[in-house]
């Protein structure tokens, strides 16, 4: 029995090592003065300096952040409206078909979304660039927000709304004082998911980005196609640290808002 337990632990450790080895491998060589991803010659911060002095890269990072924040904010608003709309529908069939349509963009492969949006924007006469990227990020984030908010709405007892109405609240007050505070954890979760989807997206952006406008993923792709350059390593180390901060932030937001509502225990 003990031998078995040991074997199990070894298996898990191997899986974790494989999962993390490539990431640490990238980070390790970002300090290599040798200029390649083998033979560690000596410690240097030269690549980080290069990243920080690269104004083009700086603009791209700014673009990426602006797109992520804007698209997450707008898609959160749209997604909450969508979840409210679905929740209020009475007919099961209509509800289910709307949900199915909602999920189409979540399960579609990125290439399909990218290619079809490219056609759409071309037909609508929208110039490829900032606007097209922003619109497509909003478009594929909305269903995720709906999925995150809807369970919270379903959890809410209808008596809460009825009580507010009986006490004389108008429709806007019911929404802003009762419904929205109740679903806040779902809204936050949706916002964070939208943010990460936007930051992480490559394929859709690649299709609709056109010339002149670029996000970080697209830039990394075009640099990686030209081969290995250790400034990408430095960049990825920075991104990884940023990601960890984001994850920790998300974890705490979830924990904090979860506690007051008894979430977190459910759904797992």
């Amino acid at each position: 029995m003990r031998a078995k337990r040991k074997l199990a632990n070894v298996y898990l450790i191997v899986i974790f090592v494989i999962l993390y080895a490539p990431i640490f491998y990238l980070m390790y060589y970002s300090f290599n003065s040798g200029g390649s991803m083998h033979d560690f010659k000596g410690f240097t911060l030269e690549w980080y300096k290069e990243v920080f002095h690269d104004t083009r890269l700086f603009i791209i990072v700014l673009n990426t952040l602006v797109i992520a924040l804007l698209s997450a904010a707008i898609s959160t608003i749209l997604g909450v409206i969508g979840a409210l709309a679905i929740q209020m529908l009475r007919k099961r069939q209509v509800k289910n078909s709307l949900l199915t349509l909602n999920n189409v963009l979540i399960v579609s492969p990125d290439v399909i979304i990218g290619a079809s949006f490219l056609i759409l924007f071309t037909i609508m006469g929208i110039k490829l660039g900032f606007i097209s990227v922003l619109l497509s990020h909003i478009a594929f984030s909305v269903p995720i927000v709906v999925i995150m908010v809807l369970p919270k709405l379903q959890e809410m007892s209808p008596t809460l709304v009825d009580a507010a109405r009986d006490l004389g609240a108008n429709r806007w007050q019911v929404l802003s004082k009762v419904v929205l505070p109740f679903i806040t954890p779902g809204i936050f979760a949706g916002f964070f998911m939208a943010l990460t989807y936007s930051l992480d997206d490559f394929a859709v952006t690649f299709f609709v980005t056109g010339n002149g406008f670029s996000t970080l993923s697209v830039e990394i792709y075009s640099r990686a196609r030209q081969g290995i350059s250790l400034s990408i390593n430095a960049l990825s180390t920075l991104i990884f640290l940023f990601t960890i901060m984001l994850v920790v932030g998300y974890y705490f937001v979830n924990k904090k808002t979860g506690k007051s509502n008894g979430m977190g225990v459910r759904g797992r």
Partner: protein
Amino acid sequence: MQSRTRNIYLIPYVLWIVLFVIAPIVLVVYYSFFDIEGHFTLLNYKKFFTPVYLRMTLSSFWYAFLITVFCLLLAYPTALLLTKTKHKQLWLLLIILPTWVNLLLKAYAFLGIFGAFGPANALLETLGIGQKQLLFTDFSFVFTSVYIFIPFMILPIFNSLEELSPSFVDAARDLGASPWTTFRRVIFPLTLDGVKSGCQAVFIPALSLFMLARLIAGNRVITLGTAIEEHFLVTQDWGMGSTIAVFLIIAMAIIMILTGSRR
């Protein structure tokens, strides 16, 4: 009672659905009937059924199948063992964390790992096998894809294992089932929904990974995704690209129906 409020919320949401869900699909189908000069034609569909495209479709499915199978084989034991650890939520978080790292950076890491002088080759050398061309092969493509997708397989399986009531397992054991029989007859069938949604989460994206195929496999592996990307962005033959996209959508719908959980 309050039919008017319903309509207010529905308007922007339905508008979004029409504009970004229905219209794009309709446009893809519409464009698949046009050739590169803009004439109406069925030639694209005829072309799709020529050996070149059929072989490509077949190989794309074969690679996606391989990736899914390897993911499943590695992920199921991992999920099972994870449910037995002490701080499972923490371990689970550690499984999820790498998915937050940009996919392209992970692919880029493998460019170095599988490179001519990279650690993978160094390992082969010490094992006495000697240096091999690893980058730009099917092996490196499948390996990298499995690496990238494995958390998406572990997660749903882990969740369904957590939902499984331990009393089922205890009952099977009490009734004299061996651990293997318990697994085969009780645990696995009851977590089949998790396996299905895991397969769905891996297989569909694996069909369309064009960036991995480009970066890791050079041009050795051509998937449906690579073909679509090439037709849309390189040769500008949107008609043919749309035709392939139509078939990818059909394949996706079939997979969704096959792996759909009954709820």
